[in-house]
């Protein structure tokens, strides 16, 4: 604008009048986008939005394809971060004040109980949704074509989710915290079971790795102030940092790998449901080509030159979907938190063990396995299970039928078959153990090595492995093996967790329901 004719004061007055529009303009740069170009630059120019691609494939927006599991997991983390920040205002990580601080959050902080519930339940819900997200990835064959390592990062995120939840469980310093810490420390010390067996067997003494791990974790030989300090540091600093970094890499890789997977042929369906249908004429996107920085770098960039006609601008299509899922997640967490209070038991008492002393529910499947053998249940089997999961994309490399649920009819059949066979195997194993006992009950004098080597957990894992190989042999497809394996994993985790949570009472004795537990 030519301001040369105006006085300084008049200029100032003009600027003052237009301060609203100029401020909004400086904030949003392009203003409300009305064209594809505008929509694209909105995405590219905004720090938060630019994590997305400018255009999104319609298959990504299909709720029935992703079920929103990954997004829900992420939003749960966001909710947990925010509510966690709120709780940190009041919490203090000392064995003498932590319990009272949590009590005060419950009793006198405005909205404190609700916030604590939200933090607790969003964190624990993450476990469920991260696992479901993983299962979705396998069922839709989405761990291939450059996504192999992102799957590994996903497993790391799963582990971080578990450990974040676990460390949070210990902070209130009540009976649950204390005895869960004892259990976890004992699981950390589980290699002792193995080293003890070999000690003196061949005239050698193995270092007590388990005991050392336990001491590092606890900052001593039993839980106390030092342990709480460590757990707190992990929970509020190291693990959140780690999960942010890995999540960043996870998202970055999704983009670099060309967004979410999708089947080769997608029909757009009725165009009416698209808020701003692609402009066929004009705009910066020819219908047959997309450009990106990817073109400057080497390697495959699956987004380029493929399926352009089936993409829509991310603004607003993708963002509406994301906001909707966020609102859904938040509403669900708040509603659940309104009705269900996060547990808080008596102040930690080292003299009075909880009976049954249980880890948090998401580890009770493992605790069931620990009840057979501390080392195998606590470290060996979960380690092997994770290794097996990590190996999936490297052992199944059939690059066909990406992005299709269960690949084909056979895949669906295999999933159902594995579900049934897995359920029968797990329930059968549990029923056998509960009714018949195991080696220790049959031969009380038996050497522990036999139990470490042969216990129901190991047999179950062995069965799963053999069955998966048989599926591969029978169907002549590694893909079917992957479907079978992840189904077994899900079934085992759910049934074992249910058993450990509901069916095991004081002294880890079997009861049909907690209401049957003897009154202490």
């Amino acid at each position: 604008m030519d301001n040369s004719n105006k006085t300084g004061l008049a200029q100032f007055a003009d600027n003052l009048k237009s301060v609203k529009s100029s401020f909004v303009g400086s904030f949003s740069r392009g203003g409300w986008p009305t064209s594809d170009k505008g929509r694209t630059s909105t995405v590219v120019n905004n720090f938060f939005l630019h994590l997305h691609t400018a255009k999104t494939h319609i298959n990504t927006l299909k709720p029935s394809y992703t079920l929103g599991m990954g997004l829900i997991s992420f939003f749960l983390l966001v909710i947990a971060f925010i509510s966690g920040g709120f709780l940190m205002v009041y919490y203090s990580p000392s064995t003498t004040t932590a319990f009272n601080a949590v009590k005060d959050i419950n009793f006198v902080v405005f909205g404190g109980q609700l916030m604590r519930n939200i933090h607790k339940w969003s964190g624990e819900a993450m476990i469920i949704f991260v696992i479901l997200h993983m299962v979705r990835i396998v069922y839709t064959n989405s761990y291939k074509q450059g996504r192999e390592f992102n799957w590994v990062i996903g497993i790391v995120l799963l582990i971080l989710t578990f450990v974040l939840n676990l460390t949070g469980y210990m902070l209130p310093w009540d009976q649950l915290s204390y005895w869960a810490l004892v259990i976890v420390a004992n699981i950390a010390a589980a290699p002792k079971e193995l080293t003890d067996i070999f000690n003196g067997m061949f005239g050698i003494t193995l270092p007590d790795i388990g005991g050392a791990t336990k001491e590092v974790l606890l900052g001593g030989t039993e839980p106390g102030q030092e342990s709480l300090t460590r757990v707190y540091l992990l929970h509020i600093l190291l693990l959140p940092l780690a999960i942010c970094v890995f999540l960043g890499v996870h998202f970055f890789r999704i983009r670099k790998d060309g967004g979410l997977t999708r089947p080769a042929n997608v029909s757009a369906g009725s165009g009416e449901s698209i808020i701003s249908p692609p402009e066929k004429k004009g705009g910066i996107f020819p219908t047959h080509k997309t450009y990106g920085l990817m073109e400057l770098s080497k390697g495959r960039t699956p987004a380029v030159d493929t399926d352009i006609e089936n993409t829509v601008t991310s603004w607003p299509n993708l963002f509406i979907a994301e906001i909707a899922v966020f609102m859904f997640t938040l509403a669900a967490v708040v509603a659940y938190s309104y009705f269900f209070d996060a547990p808080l038991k008596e102040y930690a008492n080292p003299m009075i063990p909880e009976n049954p002393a249980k880890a948090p529910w998401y580890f009770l499947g493992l605790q069931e396995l620990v009840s057979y053998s501390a080392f195998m249940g606590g470290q060996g089997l979960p380690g092997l299970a994770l290794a097996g999961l990590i190996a999936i994309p490297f052992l199944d490399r059939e690059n066909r039928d990406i992005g299709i649920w269960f690949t084909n009819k056979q895949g669906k059949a295999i999933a159902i078959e594995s579900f049934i066979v897995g359920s029968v195997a797990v329930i059968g194993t549990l029923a056998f153990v509960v009714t018949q006992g195991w080696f220790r009950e049959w031969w009380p004098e038996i050497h522990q090595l036999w139990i470490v080597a042969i216990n129901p957990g190991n047999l179950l894992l062995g069965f799963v492995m053999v069955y998966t190989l048989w599926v591969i042999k029978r169907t002549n497809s590694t893909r079917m093996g992957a479907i079978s394996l992840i189904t077994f994993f899900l079934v085992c985790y759910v049934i074992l967790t249910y058993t450990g949570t509901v069916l095991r009472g004081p002294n880890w004795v079997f009861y049909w329901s907690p209401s049957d537990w003897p009154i202490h």
Partner: protein
Amino acid sequence: MNSRFYLSLMLISSLVLMAFLAIAFNREMTPVWKDYQTEYKETLIKNAKDDGTRERAEKIQVGLQQIYIKALNKSDRCTSCHAGVENPLMAAAEVPYKQHSGNYLKNHPLPKFGCTLCHRGQGRALNIAEAHGEEHQHWDFPIVPAKYIQSSCASCHDYKMLETEGGEKVAKGEKLFREKGCLGCHKLNGVGGALGKDIAGIANKAYYYFSMAAVVGERNMYSWIKQHFDDPRKIVPESQMRAFLTDEEADLLTTYMLTFRTDEMPRSYRLIKNIDKVATDGKSMYTAYCSACHSDGKTSVYDEIFARTIPAIRNPSFLKTISNSELKRIVKEGRKGTQMTAWKSEAAGLTEKQIDEIVKYVAKDRPSEKSRPFNVAKIKSDIERGAEIYNNRCALCHGEEGKGGENLLGMTLRDSALSPEFIAITVRDGRKGTPMVPFGNGGIGLSNQEIADTVAYVKNLTNDKK
């Protein structure tokens, strides 16, 4: 794509979210204490007799109340509901508006003592169930029932003062505790038998320390302690506790037991007018440590709970055969295989001097004439003959293995410390006042030789490791 689905999801979710935020907000804004305080204020205004009172009542601000006591690190929010505890106008009101009974608050001002110091419960909590520590609220120390509340007085006061100045129940309980001989089996502060549990600090034990399976009514420490007096074996099936108490006595003892707390009051809270002296004369100590099992010690009684016969240790005919030093040894070392505790200072915690006093009291009624000696060592004994006599004559009461025990009237004979002469004299002369009749010339008529044979067999049983 699918925008209608997402838009409706967003809309519905937002509405649900807002609805829940609204009801959560409402829940936060209407805590139960607000109702109580408002009602308290309205009652005051309604009942005001003059304008001044009414004005003061109208000025009351409804809000969260808290008594913070730095010295005790306590935050008691009880007055948020119990708003009238200090108001004499509420003397006749209902709980929770009622004024505190008695004149306790005069000497125990709220800002210094708060509420939970005496009443326990959860001071920080602001709802009834958690504040009172009701069952399933995960609070180890629920509110103390009114009938046991005097137990808290003993945290700061001596029993002599309590006797006359408002703590008569706990003072009576303390006396009863000694009279009933609880220490015979239970250790308290290092002194007492080992048969029962150590009861030091019992009033600070967590909920899960107590087995609540058979407790009737509200399951908490108070019910447990009271009901374990009423029927010990109902509460703890394997218990051997001998408790024969009236309901009132059980309440008094419960009150006293609740004084066994581990949280010590700061010096500035305590008011001790007299140093409580525990009587250390023989009779008092016999009552405190021995009488629970031995009663007055004059007659031996078969005890159903112990499943054996408890000896009459103050029976003159027994004392005739046993010397003080022998008695002292038994008191000090206890009797292996029976319920008798070793009372030496390393075990049950009695000093040498105290044991001497007790032995002196036990042996008070020893007849001046001694038993005729019985020189067993001089007689050459025949164990096989002894076995025959033992099985015919003795085994009926003492058992075939000489262990005494269940449904047997006799004592155990398998204490290596029992001298052959002691046994021989007892067999010959019997024990007056007990089922043990004289087997010697004055009674059944066994010869000294036969008695010596029997004694030899009995001593041989002791060597037998069975």
